[in-house]
């Protein structure tokens, strides 16, 4: 057991070490020594607070959109799917057997000038002739919504599928119409799925860089992009590690607050 947990946590220790190193005086680019410089964290945060905010903003919007799309889908599969349930679940997951990268690039093409979305929208006058959809915050969020949709759909499905349909009948029997039954019974009972799904979507979305790199512009850079470029282009390991830890801490705090608020502890 102990060994296994060590295996899980080892890279974390390593990252923590790296995050407080400073460049070796007179050394090559990429040579660092351990100096326990915690100022690294503050520097990294201050320098990149804009991307920080953007990461959380985009991830939040993508999570909300994914929830709005996945809930009716999961509900329909669970309650109306009948014997096609498993087939429908496979359909939901199928696209994710292809490469994450390629899926994202496919979205770039779909939303691009040569895809069919932009001409259609222009024909109906929904967007102006000069508006493009790629290289925009819209495209980044759309890509993230799409890419993390199965992580939202599957836990939602699992949770909704477990609801005893008789409790919904009981609600109708007790003077609640369809909407009230949804608000008072279905939604609260599916909260474990909502919480799990939003976490599974939000966490990777907040740390994502692929969508922003492919579908975005320099103005839509997220923290993941900063970390990546720090590492690969500038070879600034400590900053990358510090940013990564800061991101992890921020996510952990948000998640804790959220789980407390959603009150799943009582539901579990």
């Amino acid at each position, binding site marked *: 057991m102990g060994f296994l947990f060590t295996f899980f946590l080892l890279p974390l220790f390593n990252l923590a070490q790296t995050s407080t190193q400073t460049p070796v005086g007179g050394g090559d680019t990429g040579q660092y020594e351990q100096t326990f410089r915690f100022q690294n964290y503050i520097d990294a945060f201050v320098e990149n607070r804009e991307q920080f905010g953007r990461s959380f903003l985009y991830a939040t919007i993508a999570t909300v959109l994914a929830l709005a799309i996945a809930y009716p889908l999961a509900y329909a599969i669970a309650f109306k799917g009948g014997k096609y349930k498993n087939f429908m679940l496979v359909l939901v997951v199928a696209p994710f057997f292809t490469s994450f990268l390629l899926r994202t690039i496919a979205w770039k093409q779909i939303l691009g000038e040569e895809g069919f979305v932009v001409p259609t929208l222009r024909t109906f006058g929904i967007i102006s002739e000069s508006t493009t959809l790629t290289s925009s915050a819209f495209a980044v969020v759309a890509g993230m919504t799409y890419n993390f949709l199965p992580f939202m759909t599957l836990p939602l499905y699992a949770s909704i599928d477990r609801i*005893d349909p008789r*409790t919904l*009948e*009981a*609600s109708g029997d*007790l*003077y*609640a*119409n369809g909407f009230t039954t949804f608000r008072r019974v279905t939604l609260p*009972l599916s909260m474990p799925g909502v919480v799990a799904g939003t976490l599974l979507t939000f966490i990777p979305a907040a740390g994502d860089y692929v969508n922003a790199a492919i579908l975005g512009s320099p103005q839509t850079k997220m923290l993941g992009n900063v970390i990546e470029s720090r590492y690969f282009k500038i070879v600034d390991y400590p900053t990358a590690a510090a940013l990564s830890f800061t991101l992890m801490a921020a996510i952990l705090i948000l998640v804790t607050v959220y789980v407390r608020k959603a009150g799943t502890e009582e539901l579990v």
Partner: protein
Amino acid sequence: MSDIAKSARGDLKLSNLTKSYGDFTAVDDLSLVIPKGSFFALLGPSGCGKTTTLRMIAGLEEPTQGTIALGETDITDTKPYQRPINTVFQNYALFPHLTIFENIAFGLRRRGIKDVDDAVNKALDLVELPHLAQRKPTQLSGGQQQRIALARAIVNRPALLLLDEPLGALDLKLRRQMQIELKWIQKEVGITFVHVTHDQEEAMTMADTIAVMNEGKIEQMGSPADLYDNPETAFVANFLGQSNLIKGTISGNDGANQIVDLFGQKISLQKDRSHGVDNSIYAGIRPEKFRISRLETATSGNVLTGGKVEDVSYIGVSTQYQVLMPWGQELMVFEQNDDGVAPFSVGEPVNISWEPIFTFGLRGDEDAEAGTEVNPDEDLDDE
């Protein structure tokens, strides 16, 4: 509460109610009036259509044909939430995310009642669980959940309360106690109860009127004593308690009685307890009506001689005998253990006698086994 809920009070009237699923007719042209304030039981085996009938009354299933009316109001096409009818579901269907208090308050709140504390607390008192108000349903035992489901329904003072095998999940002793309490609560609140069950003892203990259902139709309806003492079909005779059905022929008349020949032995049967009999007949006698006696003992009433004790089973309150008759049939005899007489032993030759008034007559072409099957392929929840 909707207008319908306010106006629809009074007797429940089902007219030509039918429910088909494809080729299968679950409920077949059922017509029935359940008087306001009564305790009515729908009794039958799994799959007889009793639960489907209940769900149509609740509005959870749409009838294929026929109408449902409460008092003067036709409620056939209304939604469940518009009907002044509440249900105690088979597995309670409590809301797992709400406290017991909020479970009970649910119906009141939906009807826009602001101050629910009084009503909820009274309902909790009625089911004797006021200390559990702040618990969640999963923290309760089966018996407690059953009471809360009842409180959740009764607190709304519906015109009609439907109970779908509400005691099915409880163990024997608890079930007996809850039967007494349910009956008491029904008297206390005066609401019409419609109780669906497959447990004949439960129906007999609680209901004013029992309708025995079989294959989507009502076989017989009446008070528990009517049904038990004077069943009109083999199904009712066997499903409601146990019966000995002996094949015979009508051999004559004697005033208000028919003389029945059972394999050469003559017994008498009141004409008004003889149902659709022509010549061929099944004479029915309940096992506890039989008296078993040694050959030297004097017997009166109807007597069958030549029996032999095949099996003796002592169960405290009574002893159950299987007596083999000369024509090869085994008769069941229950003797209450109250007279201090030593029990009969296996192999002993005995006579069997009973008061003629307890004989009932069924058509000779009936299936004598109808309603006796204990089918291990079927469980409580099958319907």
